[in-house]
């Protein structure tokens, strides 16, 4: 149990940021890139038939909750995680843990987080934040995607924790209960990299992993033929938002993962990881290039087939380069 003053650090992404901040509070000096890499956060998925807010689902990261759980497991950190049926019980449990001086991670809906800029407040229920104290009637909040600590009223926090719509957070909260001196960073890094390679290269279905990049590329090519211009622009806009707006550190988490490979390479004194970091940075630049041109096409609301064809090709470049890179990462000797 730590009675240390909680220190807030800003990070690029909510789950990896909360992971880093909770672990740092326990004396584990871990960066966000390291948390993201060990947690095998990098991924890609495109599911044309599952529509979220009317647009096909696209994701650049692994499912919510996986990063924190995997990091805890790989670094021998004991955690307690719990869901609740009753909002009052969830808030009481939060208060009880805070009273012991422990910071608490939570899932919540971005829509009800009054401290966030209005432009970002959509119904997104898988956001992670930390409460590190309570002062009279306000909770002290460390939300890793914003620059400083902030506060929220209990009635807004409970709305956020019990927001409806899939997935429902159901008051999910988690905190560290113990750490171990037998942490093996090298092993954790190896497991993280192997798992990312598995998820990027092994899925047997077209919607997940590297294959999904090519699926999206084919879909994009068909947008001007199959969709009215406004809808095509919406679909393209959503891909840009998933890649850049939701807090990925840039290029759909690719820069964040490249930072991890670089840090892992330094720690393990491996030049190959440093090289792959550089390679992934270039791939990230190509994702940014794709987003740049996607935004241009989206703004023009063009029905120009050539533009969408070119956009599709830019995406395929990313797909091919990533396939090459992850094949190399998979073949690493440990």
């Amino acid at each position: 149990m730590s009675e240390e003053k909680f220190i807030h650090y800003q990070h690029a992404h909510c789950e990896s940021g909360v992971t880093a901040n909770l672990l740092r509070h326990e004396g584990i000096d871990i960066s966000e890139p390291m948390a993201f890499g060990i947690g095998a956060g990098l991924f890609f998925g495109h599911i044309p038939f599952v529509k979220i807010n009317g647009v096909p689902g696209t994701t650049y990261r692994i499912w919510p909750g996986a990063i924190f759980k995997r990091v805890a497991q790989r670094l021998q950190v004991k955690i307690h995680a719990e869901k609740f049926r009753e909002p009052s019980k969830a808030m009481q449990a939060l208060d009880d843990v805070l009273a012991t001086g422990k910071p608490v991670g939570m899932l919540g809906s971005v829509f009800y987080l009054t401290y966030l800029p209005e432009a970002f407040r959509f119904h997104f229920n898988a956001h992670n934040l930390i409460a590190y104290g309570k002062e009279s009637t306000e909770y002290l909040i460390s939300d890793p995607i914003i620059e400083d600590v902030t506060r929220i009223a209990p009635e807004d926090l409970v709305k956020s924790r019990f927001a409806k719509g899939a997935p429902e957070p159901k008051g999910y909260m988690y905190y560290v209960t113990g750490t171990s001196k037998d942490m093996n960073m090298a092993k954790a890094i190896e497991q993280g990299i192997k798992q990312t390679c598995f998820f990027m290269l092994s899925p047997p279905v077209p919607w997940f992993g590297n294959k999904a990049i090519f699926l999206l590329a084919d879909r994009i090519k068909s947008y001007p033929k199959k969709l009215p211009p406004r809808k095509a622009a919406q679909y393209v806009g959503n891909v840009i938002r998933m890649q850049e707006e939701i807090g990925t550190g840039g290029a759909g988490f690719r820069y964040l993962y490249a930072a991890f490979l670089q840090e892992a390479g330094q720690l393990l004194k491996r030049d190959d990881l440093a090289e792959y970091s550089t390679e992934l940075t270039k791939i990230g630049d190509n994702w940014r290039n794709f987003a740049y041109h996607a935004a241009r096409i989206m703004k023009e609301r063009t029905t120009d087939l050539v533009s969408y064809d070119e956009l599709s090709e830019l995406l395929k470049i990313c797909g091919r380069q990533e396939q090459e890179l992850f094949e190399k990462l998979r073949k690493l000797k440990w």
Partner: protein
Amino acid sequence: MNVSEVPQDPRNIKQGDTLKKKMYAVGDDGKYTGVKSAGWEAENAALRQAWNDIDETLAETETKVRAGQLSPIPYFMQKNLMDLSLLARYMGKWQWQVKRHFKPDVFKKLSAGTLDKYARIFNITKEELTRQNPAR
């Protein structure tokens, strides 16, 4: 992306939006570091489009409410970025039940309790919900 290339394109989409997000970029020494960014025009444009779409749909709905074709329910539903499925979930009702409440003559007969529940979900007062014309 080099540290010098991290964009600082202000969003200017809603009031007071000056949050600087953290990006990862490479310094001249080749080392990754975190850099704050006020925004990137590509992502700003996508976000702006999403809000423009919402505003456009909301304006269309508002016209229909003022013309007496729809009750205020779909207006406030869209204002709160909800769809029928999500609103029905919050109300604890079937979607077809909520959809019925879109009809002005059905809306007029709703109980005070139901109106209170809608108002709470929409974060407005019952008076604002039942006003003749929806507030801008």
